[in-house]
C-alpha cells in the first residue's frame, strides 16, 4: 500500500502544490487526496512538490494526504493492448464503461491489461539458454493479425532457468525465470516501462521502404518512409482528421497506434464503431486487430493530454521491439503543446512566444526522435513512423508549434484552405508540401513497381510548378492571351488535380490506390500530355481537349479500373496512340 508522502498545500486547477514532500522525486507518480487522484511530480522546490493531476481536482483541499509508491509514470506492455482504447495515462476506457456507465468517474484504478483473460503461450526459448535484453521467450497470438512476442525486458540478461510449457496463462502468470547472476527474476507475459524514457535499441538504420498509404498525393508526390516523421498542419475544416483516419485505415503498417489528443469525442467514437467492421486491404482481417487507441478528448483532463503522447509512443516502441512496422498517428500535437502551455502557466514559468514555455522545442525534438527505423536489441528490425497533425491558430504556419515542428520532421503535408473550400480532398497542397524521403524510397519504387517512377514524378511536379506561375498571369489578364502550349499546361494540371490528386475517402474503389495503379494513372496522364502537345502543335484547339473522349476517360480512370482490373488500365494506356489521330482538326 502506498505511503503518505506529503499534504496538499495549494490547489489551482490541475496543478497541486504539496508540502512536506522531501521524499518525492521528479516525474514520480503520486496519488492525491482521499479519492487517490493520479498525478505526476513536475517541479520541486524547498520541500514543496508541484504535481500535475490527471483528473479533475474539484473538492481537493489543503491538508489532504498525498500518497506515493515512488515509481515513475509507466505503462503496462503485454497481450491485450491491440483492439483496446485507453485514456492518456493508459486507463482502459472500455472496462471503465462496463464498470461505471457513460461517465468517467474520478479516482478509478483499474489495471490497463485484463487480469483474468488467458492467452495461449507457446515458448520458443528453453531452460539453460542465455537470454539478453529483448530476447524472445515465446509467442502469443494476440489477434488474428498479430503474433505478440514475449521478450526479456530491457536491462535484464542472464540464463533462463525455467520456461513455462505451452498453455493458457494470464498476463500476471510467471512464464519464465531468468538467473541474472544477482538473483532469479521471474518474467511474466507483461512488463512495465516508464513512458518518458524511450525504450533502448541497438542502432538506427536508414529508412528505405515507403509507408504505403494508398493515398495518391502522398505515395506518389510526397512519400513517407517507414520510420519517418511527417507533420500535417492545417486550419480547422481542412481535413486533418480525415487524412489521419485514412492513414490508420490504409497504411501498410503492421500496427497502428492512434492518439486522439485533445480532439473531439465523436472522432474516437467513429474509429471505435467503424474499425471493427473495416477490413485490412492486405490480410482481410478487421482493422481493429492491429489498432490501439489512446483517447484523451478535449473535455478530458488537460494533464492527461500531456501524457497521452508519451503513452502512445511507448506502446509503439514496444511493438517495434518485436520487429513490427508501427505507425503512430498523433491528432493533434498542437493540443498537446497547449496542454504544456497551460501547465507551464499554472507553474508560473516564464513564457515565450504566444505563452508557450521555452522547453517546447526540446520536448518536440524528444518526441520526434523516438520515431525511426532501428535494429532492435534482439537483432530484428522494426520502425515507428509518426504522422502528427498540427492545428495552427488561424491556419498560420508561422506560429510556434508548426515552426518548431518543421525542424524535426522530414516530410510536410500542408493542408490548404482553398482546396478544402472547393472540396478538393485530400487538401494537401502541392506547392507547400515536401518530402525528404524521395531519395530514400526511390529504390523500392524502381525495383518493385517501375524505374520510371521518380522521373514521372518530377515531370508532373514541373507541370504543376509551371501552372502555378502561369496562373499568376491568368489571374491578371485571363487565359486567352496565353499561347496554346501554355494553355495545355493549364489543362493538364487541371486534369491531374481532378483525375489523380483528388481522392474520395468515402468511395470504395477510390479510397485506396495501390502503387502499381498510381504509377499507371500517372503514366496515362503524362502520355496524354505528350500526345496532346503534339496535337496542339498540329493545330488542335486547346478548348476542344476537354471534350475528347480520352479526356473524359482519364477523369474517371480512378473509379473505372478497380484494383483487380489493372490489366484493363494497361490496355487503356495503348489507346493514346490512336486517340488523337481520330480527331479531325
Amino acid at each position, binding site marked *: 500500500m502506498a505511503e503518505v508522502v506529503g499534504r496538499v498545500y495549494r490547489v489551482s486547477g490541475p496543478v497541486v502544490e504539496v508540502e512536506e514532500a522531501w521524499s518525492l522525486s521528479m516525474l514520480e507518480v503520486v496519488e492525491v487526496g482521499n479519492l487517490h487522484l493520479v498525478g505526476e511530480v513536475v517541479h520541486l522546490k524547498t520541500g514543496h512538490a508541484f504535481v500535475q493531476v490527471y483528473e479533475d*481536482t474539484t473538492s*481537493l483541499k489543503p491538508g489532504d494526504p498525498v500518497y506515493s509508491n515512488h515509481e515513475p509514470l509507466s505503462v503496462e506492455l503485454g497481450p491485450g493492448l491491440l483492439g483496446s482504447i485507453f485514456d492518456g495515462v493508459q486507463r482502459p476506457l472500455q472496462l471503465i464503461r462496463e464498470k461505471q456507465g457513460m461517465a468517467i468517474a474520478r479516482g478509478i484504478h483499474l489495471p490497463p491489461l485484463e487480469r483474468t483473460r488467458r492467452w495461449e503461450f507457446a515458448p520458443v526459448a528453453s531452460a539453460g539458454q542465455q537470454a539478453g535484453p529483448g530476447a524472445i521467450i515465446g509467442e502469443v497470438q494476440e489477434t488474428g493479425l498479430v503474433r505478440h512476442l514475449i521478450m526479456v525486458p530491457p536491462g535484464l540478461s542472464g540464463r533462463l532457468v525455467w520456461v513455462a510449457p505451452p498453455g493458457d496463462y494470464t498476463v500476471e502468470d510467471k512464464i519464465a525465470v531468468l538467473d541474472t547472476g544477482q538473483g532469479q527474476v521471474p518474467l511474466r507475459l507483461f512488463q512495465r516501462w516508464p513512458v518518458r524514457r524511450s525504450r533502448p535499441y541497438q542502432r538506427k538504420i536508414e529508412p528505405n521502404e515507403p509507408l504505403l498509404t494508398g493515398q495518391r498525393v502522398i505515395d506518389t508526390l510526397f512519400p513517407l518512409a517507414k520510420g519517418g516523421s511527417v507533420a500535417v498542419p492545417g486550419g480547422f475544416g481542412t481535413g486533418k482528421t480525415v487524412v489521419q483516419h485514412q492513414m490508420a485505415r490504409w497504411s501498410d503498417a503492421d500496427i497502428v497506434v492512434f492518439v486522439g489528443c485533445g480532439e473531439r469525442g465523436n472522432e474516437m467514437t467513429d474509429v471505435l*464503431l467503424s474499425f471493427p467492421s473495416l477490413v485490412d486491404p492486405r490480410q482481410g482481417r478487421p482493422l481493429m486487430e492491429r489498432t490501439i487507441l489512446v483517447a484523451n478528448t478535449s473535455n478530458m483532463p488537460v494533464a492527461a493530454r500531456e501524457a497521452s503522447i508519451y503513452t502512445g509512443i511507448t506502446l509503439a516502441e514496444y511493438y517495434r521491439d518485436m520487429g513490427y512496422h508501427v505507425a503512430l498517428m498523433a491528432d493533434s500535437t498542437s493540443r498537446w503543446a497547449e496542454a504544456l502551455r497551460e501547465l507551464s502557466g499554472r507553474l508560473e514559468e516564464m513564457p515565450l512566444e504566444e505563452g508557450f514555455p521555452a522547453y517546447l522545442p526540446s520536448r518536440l525534438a524528444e518526441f520526434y526522435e523516438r520515431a525511426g527505423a532501428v535494429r532492435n536489441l534482439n537483432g530484428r528490425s522494426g520502425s515507428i513512423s509518426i504522422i502528427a497533425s498540427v492545428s495552427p491558430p488561424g491556419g498560420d504556419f508561422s506560429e510556434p508549434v508548426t515552426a518548431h515542428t518543421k525542424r524535426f520532421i522530414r516530410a510536410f503535408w500542408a493542408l490548404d484552405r482553398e482546396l478544402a473550400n472547393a472540396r478538393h480532398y485530400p487538401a494537401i497542397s502541392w506547392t507547400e508540401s515536401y518530402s525528404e524521403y524521395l531519395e530514400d524510397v526511390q529504390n523500392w519504387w524502381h525495383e518493385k513497381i517501375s524505374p520510371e517512377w521518380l522521373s514521372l514524378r518530377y515531370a508532373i511536379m514541373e507541370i504543376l510548378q509551371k501552372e502555378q506561375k502561369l496562373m499568376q498571369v491568368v489571374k491578371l489578364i485571363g487565359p486567352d492571351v496565353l499561347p496554346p502550349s501554355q494553355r495545355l499546361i493549364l489543362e493538364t494540371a487541371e486534369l491531374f488535380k481532378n483525375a489523380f490528386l483528388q481522392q474520395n475517402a*468515402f468511395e470504395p474503389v477510390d479510397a485506396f490506390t495501390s502503387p502499381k495503379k498510381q504509377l499507371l494513372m500517372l503514366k496515362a496522364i503524362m502520355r496524354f500530355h505528350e500526345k496532346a502537345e503534339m496535337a496542339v502543335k498540329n493545330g488542335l484547339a486547346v478548348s476542344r481537349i476537354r471534350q475528347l473522349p480520352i479526356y*473524359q476517360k482519364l477523369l474517371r480512370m480512378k473509379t473505372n479500373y478497380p484494383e483487380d482490373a489493372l490489366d484493363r488500365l494497361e490496355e487503356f494506356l495503348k489507346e493514346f496512340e490512336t486517340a488523337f489521330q481520330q480527331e479531325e482538326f
Partner: protein
Amino acid sequence: MSEYDLREYQGLEEVVGPIFIIRGIHSVGYNQLVEITDSEGRYRIGLTLEVGQGYAVVQVLGGTAGLSLGNCRVRFRGRPLTIGVSEEMLGRVFNGLGEPLDNLPAPLAEEMADVNGLTINPTARDYPRNIIETGLSAIDVMNTLVRGQKLPIFSGSGLPHNTIAAQIARQARVRGESFCIVFAAMGVKYDTARFFLRGFEESGVLERVAVFLSLADSPSIERLMTPRVALTCAEFLAFRKNMHVLVIMTDMANYCEALRELSTIRGEIPARKGYPGYLYSDLASLYERAGMVKDLAGSITQLPILTMPNDDITHPIPDLTGFITEGQIVLERELSVRGIYPPIAGLPSLSRLMKDNIGKGLTREDHPALAAQLFSCYAHVKDIRALAAIVGEEELAPLDHLYLQFGESFERDFLCQGVDQRRSLEESLDLGWEILSLLPREELVRISEEMLGKYYRGKDER
C-alpha cells in the same frame, strides 16, 4: 448538515473585479460553492478558483458590487455548484444561474446536478446518425445538420444570425419529430432575447423551451455559468428523460470575453489576443457536452452562435471553436448586402458529420456527389469573378459566362429563400440539379456517368 454548513467567516482580504481573496479559513476545497451575504443582507454565490493553506480565491457569480472588506459573511458549502433540474423547466425563464425570472416559484427539482456535467467516456458515445431537416437548402444539401452534432453559426454584427437560428429552431425535424429547445443568452441585449422569445411564442413552442437569460446588464461573470447551467438542464432532459434537445447559445463571443476578463484579473499568462491559454479546453468543456450516448434515446444538438470580431474568422474565438465543433455555418456580409437570405457562405461553411449520413439509403443516392459538385463549381465561380473584376466580363470565354450564370442562380435561387419557407430535402436536391444543369455536362467531373444520366437536365447533350 456537514460541518462546513455551520462555519461562517467574516471579512475579506482583497476584492478585485469579480474576485475576492479570503484568509484565515480552514479546510476549503477547490471549485466549491461559496455563499456570500453583504452588509445589506444581499445574498450571492461564488466558486473557489484557487485554494491554499488558510486562504481561498473566490469568483463571485453575482458580481462584487457592494461587497466591503469588513462586513460580509462567507460560507463554504463543501460541494460544487449544483442546480435542481426537472422536466418542469420547459416553458420557464431563468437567469444565468438557473433562478426563475418569470415571477413563478422555482420548479420542484427532480434531481440535483453538477453544472460542470460529466466527462462522457468516448466508448459510451454513439455516433450521430439521423440528419435533421432544417428546411434551408444551404444547410440540408450543402452542410447537413445531424442529430447530436455541434454546429456553430459564425456571424458578424448586423447579420441575420438570430433570424436563421430561430428559423432552424422552428423548422427542425427528424423524421417528423421536433425538438425541445434549451436557449441560453449570454451578454446579449434584451431585444435579442425578446426576438427569440416572441418567435417561440408565435410558433407555439414556448412550453417546449427552457430559457436562460444573462443579459448585457448582468455581471459578466454570470455569463461563465449560463451555458453550463443551460447544458446541465439539457443533459437531464436528453439523458434522463430521453428527449431530443436543441441547445441554442448566443453569443459565445461574450462568454469568451468574460473568460478573458476573469483571466486578466487573476494575472494569468495570456496566449493569443489576451485570451487565456486554456480557452480551447474551456470551450471544449461546453461544446463536447453535445452528442448521443449508447443505449439512451435522447440527444443534444448544439447550435452556438458567435459573432466574429471584425468578421475575422482567424480570431481566437471562431478559430478555436472551429477546431472543436463539427463544422460551421459561416454567414457572409457580401451576400447579406445583396439581399440574399440566408446569407450562408458557400465555401467556408462545412458539416463534418455530413459525409457519413447522406447518400443511398440515408438521404438520396445523388446527394454526396451533387453537394461536392456544387461546392467545386461555386469555388470556380469565385475564381472567374475575380478574373472578371480585372479583365471585364466581356473578355471572358463563353464557358466562363455559363459559370457566372450558374453562380448567380446558385445565390439567388438556391441559397435564397423566405424566412418562413421550408423546403423539403427532396425539393432542395432537385433545385440543386436544376441550377447545376446550367453547366455543360463534361464540366461535372465529380459526378458519375450513371448519376448524370439519371438526374442531369442540361440541354447540351453532346
